[in-house]
């Protein structure tokens, strides 16, 4: 008999695997999960939450710098991109990190249109990841509330 718990666990497993296979997450996210235990059960959620706050702040900085028409400080934009690349790398946000690489190249070559495009893409990408991870954490909560354990997913 397919219980609610096993259904949710299967959903969780499938969703997790798809996030890795579609390149949203990489093995650094797996590393973060290793740091979560009974004493710090919300560690991953807390770290990614800080990451998304970081995204918002840094993207805001980049947007403001790019908004200075005719007087864009590309090194300032590049510095924010570097920071975002670092934190996305630390949480396993693979697509965001990849976009930052391209974005940094545009900053280095002072390609304004390229930077604007990258900024838009990074904005979309982090929000997309945020929504997906919220769904993932929500599944975890549902499993726990239904009395089940969150399965270990080997990628």
């Amino acid at each position: 008999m397919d219980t609610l718990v096993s259904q949710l666990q299967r959903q969780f497993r499938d969703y997790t695997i798809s996030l890795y296979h579609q390149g949203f997450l990489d093995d650094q996210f797996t590393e973060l999960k290793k740091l979560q235990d009974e004493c710090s059960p919300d560690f991953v959620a807390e770290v990614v939450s800080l990451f998304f706050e970081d995204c918002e702040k840094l993207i805001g900085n980049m947007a403001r710098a790019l908004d200075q028409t005719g007087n864009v400080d590309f090194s300032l934009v590049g510095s924010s991109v570097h920071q975002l690349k670092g934190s996305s790398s630390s949480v396993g946000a693979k697509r965001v990190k990849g976009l930052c690489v391209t974005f940094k190249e545009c900053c280095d070559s002072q390609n304004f249109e390229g930077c604007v495009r990258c900024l838009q893409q990074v904005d979309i990408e982090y929000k997309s990841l945020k929504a997906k991870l919220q769904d993932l954490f929500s599944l975890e909560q549902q499993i726990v509330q239904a009395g089940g354990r969150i399965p270990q997913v080997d990628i």
Partner: protein
Amino acid sequence: MAKDGGVSCLRSSEMLNVGIGGMEPPPLDLDEVHVLAVDDSLVDRIVIERLLRITSCKVTAVDSGWRALEFLGLDNDKASDEFDKLKVDMIITDYCMPGMTGYELLKKIKESSSFRQVPVVIMSSENVLTRIDRCLEEGAEDFLLKPVKLADVKRLRSCLTGDVKLSNGNKRKLPEDSVSVDTSLPPPPPPLSLTLSTDSSDSSPPLSPVEVFSSPLSSPEDDDDVLTSSPEGSPMSEESPIRRQKMASPGLD
């Protein structure tokens, strides 16, 4: 939730040693390894802090080289007696930081009489040979490529305590070259250039470390200062036999 501006951690599960608001931090266990972590990125600070705590280290995390020097009492020329009792077993710092890079912090630490023996580990997201060489030559104990993993920190931890149980506990070997260690053998002598604080003859109780909270970050300077003048084939210093970490990892930018 932790605020922006250099605050490393405000969550109750992690905040065991808050030194503000009249809460006294618990006394430091002499056997406990105390690590000072330096990183301007809040996310990275939280992660490294957790990595260290999970490997049984006591952690003080600060967001800049200046804050680190302030914590160590090295921020002015006047020597202060109270800092002689400060027990720091390892300093792990990011390389790219606004204001003072990890390299500059490393130099200042190695110039100080109180802390030059403390192993300093540099972390960087960029696998730049000249950067790594420069740090190792300046006396860095190790160089970790970000993102830092649990295995990296466990290895550092084992080096600090001379524990041979990990198969890649020998820092001289690359992970791919590591051989499993026969644990029936007596432990090897401690690695070169490491002085464990617990061996110190100073019997005075050490100061309890406090989390250092800082003001908002200044705007970052140009982060990359790759040296192009150092020859690529520069030999490693004999005094610091450090293995390079993840030199050829695929998938790095």
